[in-house]
Protein backbone atom coordinates (compact mmCIF):
# COMPACT_ATOMS: atom_id res chain seq x y z
CA UNK A 1 0.00 0.00 0.00
CA UNK A 2 1.10 3.59 -0.67
CA UNK A 3 2.24 5.90 2.11
CA UNK A 4 -0.19 8.57 3.38
CA UNK A 5 0.86 11.98 4.68
CA UNK A 6 -0.86 14.86 6.42
CA UNK A 7 -0.11 17.79 4.14
CA UNK A 8 -2.11 20.51 5.90
CA UNK A 9 -4.39 20.79 8.90
CA UNK A 10 -6.49 23.65 10.24
CA UNK A 11 -8.81 23.82 13.23
CA UNK A 12 -11.08 26.19 15.15
CA UNK A 13 -12.09 25.54 18.75
CA UNK A 14 -13.19 27.61 21.70
CA UNK A 15 -9.55 28.33 22.57
CA UNK A 16 -8.26 29.36 19.19
CA UNK A 17 -8.62 29.87 15.47
CA UNK A 18 -5.51 28.00 14.33
CA UNK A 19 -3.54 24.90 15.32
CA UNK A 20 -0.76 27.16 16.64
CA UNK A 21 -3.18 29.25 18.73
CA UNK A 22 -4.77 26.11 20.14
CA UNK A 23 -1.35 24.64 20.91
CA UNK A 24 -0.22 27.79 22.69
CA UNK A 25 -3.35 28.01 24.84
CA UNK A 26 -3.34 24.31 25.65
CA UNK A 27 0.27 24.68 26.75
CA UNK A 28 -0.72 27.61 28.96
CA UNK A 29 -3.42 25.48 30.58
CA UNK A 30 -6.30 27.62 29.30
CA UNK A 31 -9.83 26.32 28.85
CA UNK A 32 -12.77 27.69 26.85
CA UNK A 33 -15.36 26.04 29.07
CA UNK A 34 -17.80 28.62 30.38
CA UNK A 35 -21.48 29.43 30.79
CA UNK A 36 -23.71 28.85 27.77
CA UNK A 37 -25.38 32.05 26.59
CA UNK A 38 -26.86 31.17 23.20
CA UNK A 39 -29.76 29.09 24.56
CA UNK A 40 -31.51 28.88 27.90
CA UNK A 41 -30.21 26.14 30.20
CA UNK A 42 -32.08 27.46 33.24
CA UNK A 43 -34.22 24.36 33.79
CA UNK A 44 -31.38 21.89 33.22
CA UNK A 45 -28.67 20.84 35.67
CA UNK A 46 -25.90 21.59 33.19
CA UNK A 47 -24.95 25.07 32.02
CA UNK A 48 -21.46 24.91 30.49
CA UNK A 49 -19.83 24.35 27.12
CA UNK A 50 -16.63 25.38 25.30
CA UNK A 51 -18.05 27.79 22.72
CA UNK A 52 -16.27 29.79 20.04
CA UNK A 53 -16.63 33.22 21.64
CA UNK A 54 -16.88 35.37 18.52
CA UNK A 55 -19.51 33.20 16.83
CA UNK A 56 -22.36 35.74 16.77
CA UNK A 57 -25.31 33.41 16.79
CA UNK A 58 -28.48 34.26 14.92
CA UNK A 59 -31.43 31.91 14.86
CA UNK A 60 -31.52 32.11 11.09
CA UNK A 61 -27.90 31.32 10.34
CA UNK A 62 -26.10 28.01 9.85
CA UNK A 63 -23.09 28.35 12.15
CA UNK A 64 -21.47 25.14 10.94
CA UNK A 65 -20.92 26.90 7.61
CA UNK A 66 -19.61 30.00 9.43
CA UNK A 67 -16.96 27.89 11.20
CA UNK A 68 -16.17 25.79 8.13
CA UNK A 69 -15.67 28.87 5.98
CA UNK A 70 -13.01 30.11 8.40
CA UNK A 71 -11.29 26.70 8.41
CA UNK A 72 -11.41 26.22 4.66
CA UNK A 73 -10.03 29.73 4.02
CA UNK A 74 -6.81 28.58 5.66
CA UNK A 75 -6.49 25.23 3.93
CA UNK A 76 -6.90 26.59 0.39
CA UNK A 77 -5.77 25.75 -2.18
CA UNK A 78 -6.38 22.00 -2.40
CA UNK A 79 -5.65 19.91 -5.51
CA UNK A 80 -8.63 20.00 -7.92
CA UNK A 81 -9.12 16.22 -7.88
CA UNK A 82 -9.28 16.02 -4.09
CA UNK A 83 -11.72 13.47 -2.64
CA UNK A 84 -13.84 15.12 0.09
CA UNK A 85 -14.92 13.27 3.23
CA UNK A 86 -17.45 15.16 5.37
CA UNK A 87 -17.61 13.87 8.96
CA UNK A 88 -19.76 16.35 10.85
CA UNK A 89 -22.43 14.33 12.67
CA UNK A 90 -25.20 16.72 13.72
CA UNK A 91 -25.48 19.19 10.84
CA UNK A 92 -29.27 19.19 11.04
CA UNK A 93 -29.49 20.37 14.66
CA UNK A 94 -29.80 24.09 13.91
CA UNK A 95 -32.26 23.34 11.09
CA UNK A 96 -34.45 21.34 13.48
CA UNK A 97 -34.13 23.99 16.19
CA UNK A 98 -35.28 26.64 13.72
CA UNK A 99 -38.48 24.65 13.01
CA UNK A 100 -37.28 23.61 9.53
CA UNK A 101 -38.48 26.96 8.22
CA UNK A 102 -35.19 28.37 7.07
CA UNK A 103 -33.23 27.66 3.95
CA UNK A 104 -30.45 25.91 5.89
CA UNK A 105 -28.30 22.94 4.97
CA UNK A 106 -29.46 19.84 6.83
CA UNK A 107 -28.23 16.70 5.04
CA UNK A 108 -24.59 15.51 5.14
CA UNK A 109 -24.48 15.44 1.32
CA UNK A 110 -25.41 19.13 1.26
CA UNK A 111 -22.43 19.96 3.47
CA UNK A 112 -20.08 18.06 1.14
CA UNK A 113 -21.48 19.98 -1.82
CA UNK A 114 -21.02 23.21 0.13
CA UNK A 115 -17.37 22.34 0.88
CA UNK A 116 -16.72 21.54 -2.79
CA UNK A 117 -18.31 24.84 -3.88
CA UNK A 118 -16.33 26.77 -1.29
CA UNK A 119 -13.06 25.22 -2.52
CA UNK A 120 -14.09 25.47 -6.20
CA UNK A 121 -13.37 21.78 -6.76
CA UNK A 122 -15.49 18.92 -8.10
CA UNK A 123 -17.95 17.44 -5.62
CA UNK A 124 -16.41 14.01 -5.39
CA UNK A 125 -16.48 12.21 -2.06
CA UNK A 126 -18.54 10.66 0.72
CA UNK A 127 -20.05 11.54 4.09
CA UNK A 128 -19.12 9.40 7.09
CA UNK A 129 -20.93 9.15 10.41
CA UNK A 130 -19.33 7.15 13.18
CA UNK A 131 -20.70 9.16 16.10
CA UNK A 132 -17.93 10.81 18.13
CA UNK A 133 -15.28 8.84 16.23
CA UNK A 134 -16.50 10.17 12.86
CA UNK A 135 -13.49 12.22 11.78
CA UNK A 136 -11.10 9.54 13.03
CA UNK A 137 -12.94 6.99 10.89
CA UNK A 138 -12.99 9.59 8.09
CA UNK A 139 -9.21 9.95 8.33
CA UNK A 140 -8.81 6.15 8.29
CA UNK A 141 -11.00 5.83 5.19
CA UNK A 142 -9.27 8.78 3.54
CA UNK A 143 -5.90 7.18 4.24
CA UNK A 144 -7.34 3.96 2.81
CA UNK A 145 -8.23 5.73 -0.47
CA UNK A 146 -4.66 6.98 -0.85
CA UNK A 147 -3.05 3.74 0.34
CA UNK A 148 -5.01 1.77 -2.28
CA UNK A 149 -3.93 4.24 -4.96
CA UNK A 150 -7.46 5.45 -5.70
CA UNK A 151 -6.75 9.12 -4.97
CA UNK A 152 -3.67 11.23 -4.34
CA UNK A 153 -5.38 13.78 -2.09
CA UNK A 154 -8.27 13.52 0.35
CA UNK A 155 -9.76 16.33 2.43
CA UNK A 156 -11.36 15.20 5.69
CA UNK A 157 -13.48 17.93 7.23
CA UNK A 158 -16.06 18.35 9.95
CA UNK A 159 -17.76 20.92 12.14
CA UNK A 160 -20.12 20.37 15.04
CA UNK A 161 -21.58 22.74 17.59
CA UNK A 162 -22.72 22.82 21.20
CA UNK A 163 -26.38 23.14 20.16
CA UNK A 164 -29.51 22.99 22.29
CA UNK A 165 -30.44 19.73 20.48
CA UNK A 166 -27.27 17.97 21.59
CA UNK A 167 -26.99 19.62 25.02
CA UNK A 168 -30.53 18.60 26.07
CA UNK A 169 -29.85 15.06 24.83
CA UNK A 170 -26.66 14.54 26.77
CA UNK A 171 -28.34 16.26 29.71
CA UNK A 172 -31.16 13.68 29.52
CA UNK A 173 -28.53 10.92 29.52
CA UNK A 174 -26.82 12.60 32.52
CA UNK A 175 -23.53 12.49 30.62
CA UNK A 176 -22.65 16.17 31.21
CA UNK A 177 -20.78 17.65 34.16
CA UNK A 178 -22.42 20.13 36.48
CA UNK A 179 -18.95 21.13 37.74
CA UNK A 180 -16.07 21.04 35.27
CA UNK A 181 -14.61 18.57 32.76
CA UNK A 182 -11.85 16.55 34.46
CA UNK A 183 -10.55 13.79 32.17
CA UNK A 184 -9.00 10.87 34.09
CA UNK A 185 -9.53 12.58 37.46
CA UNK A 186 -10.92 10.51 40.33
CA UNK A 187 -13.69 13.12 40.79
CA UNK A 188 -14.68 13.33 37.12
CA UNK A 189 -18.44 13.45 36.67
CA UNK A 190 -19.15 14.12 33.01
CA UNK A 191 -18.24 15.93 29.84
CA UNK A 192 -18.74 19.40 28.37
CA UNK A 193 -19.72 20.00 24.77
CA UNK A 194 -17.69 22.30 22.54
CA UNK A 195 -17.82 24.07 19.19
CA UNK A 196 -15.19 22.87 16.73
CA UNK A 197 -14.24 22.62 13.08
CA UNK A 198 -11.39 20.88 11.30
CA UNK A 199 -10.01 20.32 7.83
CA UNK A 200 -7.12 17.93 7.19
CA UNK A 201 -5.59 17.38 3.76
CA UNK A 202 -4.11 13.91 3.26
CA UNK A 203 -1.82 13.25 0.33
CA UNK A 204 0.39 10.61 -1.18
CA UNK A 205 4.14 10.89 -0.84
CA UNK A 206 4.69 12.70 -4.16
CA UNK A 207 2.29 15.52 -3.33
CA UNK A 208 3.64 15.76 0.20
CA UNK A 209 7.19 16.03 -1.16
CA UNK A 210 6.18 18.70 -3.65
CA UNK A 211 4.44 20.66 -0.88
CA UNK A 212 7.83 20.77 0.86
CA UNK A 213 6.45 20.20 4.34
CA UNK A 214 9.15 20.77 6.95
CA UNK A 215 7.76 18.07 9.24
CA UNK A 216 6.05 15.44 7.09
CA UNK A 217 3.79 13.36 9.29
CA UNK A 218 2.62 10.01 8.00
CA UNK A 219 -0.52 8.08 8.94
CA UNK A 220 1.19 4.75 9.44
CA UNK A 221 -1.74 2.69 10.70
CA UNK A 222 -5.42 2.72 11.51
CA UNK A 223 -8.02 0.46 12.99
CA UNK A 224 -11.79 0.53 13.50
CA UNK A 225 -13.78 -1.82 15.75
CA UNK A 226 -17.08 -2.26 17.54
CA UNK A 227 -17.52 -3.15 21.22
CA UNK A 228 -20.70 -5.17 20.50
CA UNK A 229 -21.71 -4.38 24.07
CA UNK A 230 -24.03 -1.35 24.46
CA UNK A 231 -25.18 1.52 22.26
CA UNK A 232 -24.39 4.38 24.69
CA UNK A 233 -21.87 2.84 27.07
CA UNK A 234 -18.43 1.38 26.37
CA UNK A 235 -17.24 -2.18 27.02
CA UNK A 236 -15.93 -1.84 30.58
CA UNK A 237 -12.80 -3.87 29.84
CA UNK A 238 -11.85 -1.70 26.86
CA UNK A 239 -11.52 -4.70 24.55
CA UNK A 240 -13.13 -2.93 21.56
CA UNK A 241 -10.76 0.02 21.79
CA UNK A 242 -7.83 -2.33 22.37
CA UNK A 243 -8.77 -4.21 19.18
CA UNK A 244 -8.80 -0.98 17.15
CA UNK A 245 -5.38 0.01 18.55
CA UNK A 246 -3.95 -3.44 17.85
CA UNK A 247 -5.18 -3.33 14.24
CA UNK A 248 -3.47 0.06 13.78
CA UNK A 249 -0.25 -1.24 15.38
CA UNK A 250 -0.21 -4.30 13.11
CA UNK A 251 -0.69 -2.17 10.01
CA UNK A 252 2.10 0.18 11.08
CA UNK A 253 4.36 -2.71 12.04
CA UNK A 254 4.93 -1.19 15.48
CA UNK A 255 5.19 -3.10 18.76
CA UNK A 256 3.07 -1.56 21.56
CA UNK A 257 6.32 -0.56 23.31
CA UNK A 258 7.08 1.63 20.29
CA UNK A 259 4.15 3.97 20.91
CA UNK A 260 5.64 7.06 22.53
CA UNK A 261 2.54 9.13 23.34
CA UNK A 262 -1.23 8.78 23.24
CA UNK A 263 -4.00 11.33 22.70
CA UNK A 264 -7.11 9.74 24.20
CA UNK A 265 -10.81 10.42 23.64
CA UNK A 266 -10.77 11.45 27.34
CA UNK A 267 -14.29 12.88 27.65
CA UNK A 268 -14.32 13.14 31.44
CA UNK A 269 -17.23 10.73 31.87
CA UNK A 270 -16.78 8.02 34.47
CA UNK A 271 -17.25 5.10 32.08
CA UNK A 272 -15.36 6.39 29.01
CA UNK A 273 -12.19 7.25 30.89
CA UNK A 274 -12.24 3.99 32.87
CA UNK A 275 -12.67 2.06 29.64
CA UNK A 276 -9.71 3.85 28.06
CA UNK A 277 -7.48 3.18 31.06
CA UNK A 278 -8.47 -0.51 30.84
CA UNK A 279 -7.59 -0.55 27.12
CA UNK A 280 -4.20 1.07 27.88
CA UNK A 281 -3.43 -1.63 30.46
CA UNK A 282 -4.62 -4.27 27.97
CA UNK A 283 -2.42 -3.11 25.08
CA UNK A 284 0.55 -1.46 26.78
CA UNK A 285 0.69 -3.29 30.13
CA UNK A 286 2.09 -1.34 33.08
CA UNK A 287 4.36 0.80 30.89
CA UNK A 288 4.18 4.51 31.72
CA UNK A 289 4.29 6.96 28.82
CA UNK A 290 2.66 10.36 28.06
CA UNK A 291 -1.13 10.10 27.74
CA UNK A 292 -3.41 13.14 27.48
CA UNK A 293 -6.85 14.55 26.68
CA UNK A 294 -7.67 18.04 25.39
CA UNK A 295 -11.40 17.96 26.16
CA UNK A 296 -10.95 19.78 29.48
CA UNK A 297 -9.92 22.77 27.35
CA UNK A 298 -12.03 22.58 24.18
CA UNK A 299 -14.94 20.38 25.26
CA UNK A 300 -16.27 17.49 23.23
CA UNK A 301 -16.62 18.63 19.63
CA UNK A 302 -18.46 15.46 18.51
CA UNK A 303 -17.70 14.55 14.89
CA UNK A 304 -14.89 17.08 14.70
CA UNK A 305 -13.12 15.77 17.81
CA UNK A 306 -10.88 13.16 16.20
CA UNK A 307 -9.73 15.49 13.44
CA UNK A 308 -8.95 18.29 15.88
CA UNK A 309 -7.01 15.86 18.07
CA UNK A 310 -5.10 14.55 15.04
CA UNK A 311 -4.09 18.13 14.16
CA UNK A 312 -2.90 18.62 17.75
CA UNK A 313 -0.97 15.32 17.57
CA UNK A 314 0.76 16.52 14.40
CA UNK A 315 1.84 19.61 16.33
CA UNK A 316 2.91 17.42 19.27
CA UNK A 317 5.23 15.44 16.98
CA UNK A 318 6.83 18.67 15.81
CA UNK A 319 7.23 20.01 19.35
CA UNK A 320 8.20 16.57 20.79
CA UNK A 321 5.82 17.34 23.65
CA UNK A 322 2.20 16.64 24.62
CA UNK A 323 0.01 19.31 26.23
CA UNK A 324 -1.30 19.19 29.81
CA UNK A 325 -4.60 17.45 30.52
CA UNK A 326 -6.53 20.47 31.67
CA UNK A 327 -9.04 19.89 34.46
CA UNK A 328 -7.30 16.82 35.86
CA UNK A 329 -5.96 17.32 39.40
CA UNK A 330 -6.10 13.95 41.13
CA UNK A 331 -5.48 11.18 38.58
CA UNK A 332 -7.03 7.73 38.65
CA UNK A 333 -4.57 5.03 39.75
CA UNK A 334 -4.03 3.73 36.21
CA UNK A 335 -3.55 7.30 34.94
CA UNK A 336 -0.75 8.07 37.40
CA UNK A 337 2.59 8.37 35.66
CA UNK A 338 0.81 8.69 32.32
CA UNK A 339 -1.68 11.56 32.41
CA UNK A 340 -0.35 14.87 33.72
CA UNK A 341 -1.63 18.36 34.41
CA UNK A 342 1.62 19.67 32.93
CA UNK A 343 3.17 19.27 29.47
CA UNK A 344 5.23 16.11 28.93
CA UNK A 345 8.07 15.57 26.47
CA UNK A 346 8.51 12.48 24.30
CA UNK A 347 10.69 11.26 21.45
CA UNK A 348 8.60 12.85 18.70
CA UNK A 349 8.67 9.84 16.37
CA UNK A 350 5.14 8.45 16.73
CA UNK A 351 1.89 9.12 18.52
CA UNK A 352 -1.43 7.29 18.83
CA UNK A 353 -4.84 8.99 18.82
CA UNK A 354 -8.21 7.29 19.38
CA UNK A 355 -11.89 8.09 19.69
CA UNK A 356 -14.93 6.08 20.69
CA UNK A 357 -18.60 6.77 20.19
CA UNK A 358 -22.22 5.76 20.60
CA UNK A 359 -23.10 2.58 18.79
CA UNK A 360 -19.94 0.99 20.23
CA UNK A 361 -17.53 2.29 17.58
CA UNK A 362 -13.80 2.75 18.27
CA UNK A 363 -11.18 4.17 15.90
CA UNK A 364 -7.41 4.45 16.24
CA UNK A 365 -4.82 6.27 14.14
CA UNK A 366 -1.04 6.10 14.41
CA UNK A 367 0.99 9.10 13.27
CA UNK A 368 4.67 8.78 12.53
CA UNK A 369 7.44 11.17 11.51
Amino acid sequence: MKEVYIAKSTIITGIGDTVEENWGRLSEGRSAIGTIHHFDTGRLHYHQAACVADLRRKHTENHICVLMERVLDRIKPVPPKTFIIWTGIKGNAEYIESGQKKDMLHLPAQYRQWVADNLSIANNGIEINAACAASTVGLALGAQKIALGKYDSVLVCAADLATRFVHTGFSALKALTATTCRPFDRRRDGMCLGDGAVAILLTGSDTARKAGSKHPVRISGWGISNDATHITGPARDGRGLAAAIQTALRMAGIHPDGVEAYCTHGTGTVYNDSMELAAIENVFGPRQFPVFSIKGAIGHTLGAAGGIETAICRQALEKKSVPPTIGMENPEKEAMGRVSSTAQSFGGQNILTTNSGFGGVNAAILLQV
Partner: protein
Amino acid sequence: MEINIIGGGWVTAKNHGRMRDGARPVLTAGAPVLPSVEDIFSHPPARYRRFDAYTRLGCAAISLALQDAGLAHADRERPVGIVVSSVYECFEVDLAYYETAGEDGGMFASPNLFSYTLPGIVTGEAAIHFKLTGPTFTVGDSIPGRGYPALATSVDVIRTGTCETMVSGWLDSPGDRLETRVRGVDRIRGAIFLVLSSGCKNNVLTQLRIKDSDLVTASGAKLRSALDLFE
Protein backbone atom coordinates in the same frame (compact mmCIF):
# COMPACT_ATOMS: atom_id res chain seq x y z
CA MET B 1 -9.43 -9.05 -6.95
CA GLU B 2 -12.76 -10.82 -6.38
CA ILE B 3 -15.06 -10.33 -3.42
CA ASN B 4 -17.54 -13.11 -2.69
CA ILE B 5 -21.17 -12.31 -1.91
CA ILE B 6 -22.23 -14.99 0.55
CA GLY B 7 -25.62 -13.68 1.62
CA GLY B 8 -28.23 -11.04 1.01
CA GLY B 9 -31.45 -9.89 2.64
CA TRP B 10 -33.94 -7.09 2.24
CA VAL B 11 -37.12 -5.53 3.54
CA THR B 12 -39.12 -3.08 1.41
CA ALA B 13 -42.70 -1.86 1.26
CA LYS B 14 -43.39 -4.53 -1.38
CA ASN B 15 -41.55 -7.60 -0.12
CA HIS B 16 -38.84 -9.06 2.02
CA GLY B 17 -36.56 -11.99 1.43
CA ARG B 18 -33.15 -13.60 1.18
CA MET B 19 -30.91 -13.67 -1.86
CA ARG B 20 -30.52 -17.46 -1.78
CA ASP B 21 -34.29 -17.88 -2.20
CA GLY B 22 -34.11 -16.40 -5.69
CA ALA B 23 -36.40 -13.38 -5.37
CA ARG B 24 -35.21 -9.77 -5.60
CA PRO B 25 -36.08 -6.54 -3.76
CA VAL B 26 -38.88 -4.40 -5.22
CA LEU B 27 -38.80 -0.75 -4.23
CA THR B 28 -42.03 1.21 -3.80
CA ALA B 29 -43.17 4.09 -1.62
CA GLY B 30 -44.82 3.31 1.69
CA ALA B 31 -44.12 1.64 4.99
CA PRO B 32 -41.86 -1.43 4.84
CA VAL B 33 -43.56 -4.76 5.56
CA LEU B 34 -41.44 -6.20 8.35
CA PRO B 35 -41.28 -9.97 8.67
CA SER B 36 -42.50 -11.43 11.95
CA VAL B 37 -39.94 -11.47 14.73
CA GLU B 38 -39.90 -15.30 14.63
CA ASP B 39 -38.99 -15.24 10.93
CA ILE B 40 -35.93 -13.07 11.37
CA PHE B 41 -34.57 -13.83 14.83
CA SER B 42 -34.17 -17.03 16.82
CA HIS B 43 -34.38 -14.62 19.74
CA PRO B 44 -34.96 -10.91 19.06
CA PRO B 45 -32.57 -8.17 20.22
CA ALA B 46 -33.36 -7.25 23.81
CA ARG B 47 -34.52 -3.74 22.91
CA TYR B 48 -36.11 -4.59 19.54
CA ARG B 49 -39.57 -3.23 20.45
CA ARG B 50 -37.97 0.00 21.66
CA PHE B 51 -35.99 0.58 18.46
CA ASP B 52 -37.05 3.47 16.25
CA ALA B 53 -38.36 2.49 12.79
CA TYR B 54 -34.99 3.09 11.06
CA THR B 55 -33.09 0.85 13.49
CA ARG B 56 -35.76 -1.87 13.46
CA LEU B 57 -35.85 -1.93 9.64
CA GLY B 58 -32.05 -2.06 9.41
CA CYS B 59 -31.68 -4.83 11.99
CA ALA B 60 -34.38 -6.90 10.24
CA ALA B 61 -32.64 -6.70 6.85
CA ILE B 62 -29.19 -7.30 8.37
CA SER B 63 -30.61 -10.37 10.12
CA LEU B 64 -31.99 -11.74 6.83
CA ALA B 65 -28.62 -11.18 5.13
CA LEU B 66 -26.72 -12.91 7.93
CA GLN B 67 -29.22 -15.82 7.92
CA ASP B 68 -28.65 -16.14 4.19
CA ALA B 69 -24.89 -16.28 4.76
CA GLY B 70 -25.24 -18.79 7.59
CA LEU B 71 -23.78 -16.24 10.01
CA ALA B 72 -26.83 -15.34 12.10
CA HIS B 73 -25.85 -17.48 15.08
CA ALA B 74 -22.61 -17.37 17.01
CA ASP B 75 -21.43 -18.28 20.48
CA ARG B 76 -18.58 -15.82 20.42
CA GLU B 77 -17.66 -12.42 18.98
CA ARG B 78 -16.59 -12.32 15.33
CA PRO B 79 -14.53 -9.72 13.42
CA VAL B 80 -17.30 -8.89 10.96
CA GLY B 81 -17.97 -5.23 10.07
CA ILE B 82 -21.14 -3.36 9.12
CA VAL B 83 -21.40 -0.37 6.75
CA VAL B 84 -24.76 1.26 6.12
CA SER B 85 -25.42 3.90 3.47
CA SER B 86 -28.42 6.16 3.78
CA VAL B 87 -29.78 9.40 2.37
CA TYR B 88 -31.87 10.53 5.33
CA GLU B 89 -30.20 8.49 8.05
CA CYS B 90 -32.04 8.90 11.38
CA PHE B 91 -33.60 12.32 10.55
CA GLU B 92 -37.08 11.06 11.46
CA VAL B 93 -36.03 10.18 15.01
CA ASP B 94 -34.09 13.47 15.26
CA LEU B 95 -37.38 15.30 14.72
CA ALA B 96 -39.21 13.03 17.17
CA TYR B 97 -36.51 13.53 19.80
CA TYR B 98 -36.59 17.31 19.52
CA GLU B 99 -40.35 17.34 20.08
CA THR B 100 -39.59 15.93 23.54
CA ALA B 101 -36.91 18.58 24.17
CA GLY B 102 -38.99 21.53 23.04
CA GLU B 103 -41.01 22.18 26.18
CA ASP B 104 -40.14 22.91 29.83
CA GLY B 105 -36.67 24.08 28.93
CA GLY B 106 -35.66 20.64 27.70
CA MET B 107 -35.86 19.06 31.15
CA PHE B 108 -38.09 16.22 29.88
CA ALA B 109 -36.10 15.43 26.74
CA SER B 110 -36.23 11.69 26.04
CA PRO B 111 -32.92 9.90 26.73
CA ASN B 112 -34.14 6.84 24.82
CA LEU B 113 -34.97 8.80 21.67
CA PHE B 114 -31.73 10.81 21.92
CA SER B 115 -29.80 7.51 21.93
CA TYR B 116 -31.13 6.85 18.43
CA THR B 117 -30.26 10.27 16.95
CA LEU B 118 -27.12 8.89 15.33
CA PRO B 119 -27.37 6.87 12.11
CA GLY B 120 -24.80 4.34 13.30
CA ILE B 121 -26.86 3.15 16.25
CA VAL B 122 -28.40 0.56 13.94
CA THR B 123 -24.92 -0.88 13.36
CA GLY B 124 -24.34 -0.90 17.10
CA GLU B 125 -27.60 -2.76 17.82
CA ALA B 126 -26.83 -5.30 15.09
CA ALA B 127 -23.23 -5.67 16.33
CA ILE B 128 -24.47 -6.39 19.86
CA HIS B 129 -27.09 -8.89 18.78
CA PHE B 130 -24.98 -10.78 16.27
CA LYS B 131 -21.67 -10.39 18.19
CA LEU B 132 -19.91 -8.53 15.37
CA THR B 133 -16.76 -6.61 16.34
CA GLY B 134 -15.44 -5.37 12.99
CA PRO B 135 -15.56 -1.77 11.69
CA THR B 136 -18.98 -0.08 11.86
CA PHE B 137 -20.00 3.27 10.40
CA THR B 138 -22.49 4.87 8.03
CA VAL B 139 -21.93 6.51 4.66
CA GLY B 140 -24.06 9.08 2.86
CA ASP B 141 -26.08 7.73 -0.07
CA SER B 142 -27.83 9.18 -3.09
CA ILE B 143 -31.26 8.29 -4.46
CA PRO B 144 -29.94 6.24 -7.39
CA GLY B 145 -27.02 4.89 -5.36
CA ARG B 146 -28.96 2.82 -2.84
CA GLY B 147 -26.12 1.01 -1.18
CA TYR B 148 -23.32 1.66 -3.65
CA PRO B 149 -21.29 3.92 -1.29
CA ALA B 150 -21.47 1.30 1.48
CA LEU B 151 -20.49 -1.54 -0.86
CA ALA B 152 -17.59 0.41 -2.39
CA THR B 153 -16.29 1.44 1.05
CA SER B 154 -16.64 -2.12 2.39
CA VAL B 155 -14.67 -3.48 -0.55
CA ASP B 156 -11.90 -0.98 0.28
CA VAL B 157 -11.89 -2.13 3.92
CA ILE B 158 -11.56 -5.76 2.79
CA ARG B 159 -8.77 -4.84 0.36
CA THR B 160 -6.67 -3.28 3.13
CA GLY B 161 -6.82 -6.59 5.00
CA THR B 162 -8.20 -5.08 8.21
CA CYS B 163 -11.46 -7.07 8.05
CA GLU B 164 -12.35 -9.89 5.65
CA THR B 165 -16.15 -10.06 6.08
CA MET B 166 -18.47 -7.05 5.90
CA VAL B 167 -22.26 -6.65 6.03
CA SER B 168 -23.01 -3.77 3.73
CA GLY B 169 -25.96 -2.05 2.10
CA TRP B 170 -28.69 0.59 2.02
CA LEU B 171 -31.18 1.71 4.64
CA ASP B 172 -33.69 4.57 4.47
CA SER B 173 -36.77 5.08 6.57
CA PRO B 174 -38.17 8.58 6.14
CA GLY B 175 -41.41 8.80 8.11
CA ASP B 176 -44.39 11.11 8.30
CA ARG B 177 -42.54 13.86 10.16
CA LEU B 178 -39.80 14.08 7.59
CA GLU B 179 -42.16 13.82 4.63
CA THR B 180 -44.38 16.63 5.88
CA ARG B 181 -41.74 18.99 7.26
CA VAL B 182 -38.84 18.74 4.81
CA ARG B 183 -39.23 19.55 1.13
CA GLY B 184 -38.54 17.02 -1.60
CA VAL B 185 -38.14 13.88 0.52
CA ASP B 186 -37.94 10.65 -1.49
CA ARG B 187 -40.69 8.36 -0.20
CA ILE B 188 -39.01 5.02 -0.92
CA ARG B 189 -38.32 3.20 2.34
CA GLY B 190 -36.44 -0.03 2.69
CA ALA B 191 -33.21 -1.83 3.49
CA ILE B 192 -31.01 -4.09 1.36
CA PHE B 193 -27.90 -5.74 2.80
CA LEU B 194 -25.24 -8.04 1.34
CA VAL B 195 -22.58 -10.06 3.13
CA LEU B 196 -19.21 -9.57 1.43
CA SER B 197 -16.23 -11.77 2.16
CA SER B 198 -12.75 -12.31 0.84
CA GLY B 199 -12.10 -15.24 3.16
CA CYS B 200 -15.26 -17.34 2.89
CA LYS B 201 -15.17 -19.46 -0.26
CA ASN B 202 -18.25 -21.60 0.52
CA ASN B 203 -21.88 -20.82 -0.29
CA VAL B 204 -20.88 -18.08 -2.72
CA LEU B 205 -23.94 -16.55 -4.38
CA THR B 206 -22.22 -14.14 -6.72
CA GLN B 207 -19.09 -12.04 -6.93
CA LEU B 208 -17.93 -8.46 -7.18
CA ARG B 209 -14.81 -7.75 -9.20
CA ILE B 210 -12.57 -4.71 -9.30
CA LYS B 211 -11.91 -3.58 -12.85
CA ASP B 212 -10.11 -0.33 -13.66
CA SER B 213 -11.03 0.94 -10.16
CA ASP B 214 -14.73 0.23 -10.83
CA LEU B 215 -16.78 -2.45 -9.12
CA VAL B 216 -18.39 -4.83 -11.59
CA THR B 217 -20.93 -7.61 -11.09
CA ALA B 218 -20.44 -11.25 -12.13
CA SER B 219 -22.03 -10.42 -15.50
CA GLY B 220 -19.47 -7.69 -16.08
CA ALA B 221 -21.86 -4.76 -15.58
CA LYS B 222 -20.65 -1.74 -13.63
CA LEU B 223 -22.16 -1.78 -10.13
CA ARG B 224 -24.46 1.19 -9.52
CA SER B 225 -26.52 0.08 -6.52
CA ALA B 226 -27.08 -2.88 -4.21
CA LEU B 227 -30.02 -3.89 -6.42
CA ASP B 228 -27.60 -4.76 -9.24
CA LEU B 229 -26.32 -7.74 -7.25
CA PHE B 230 -29.77 -9.36 -7.38
CA GLU B 231 -29.74 -9.57 -11.18
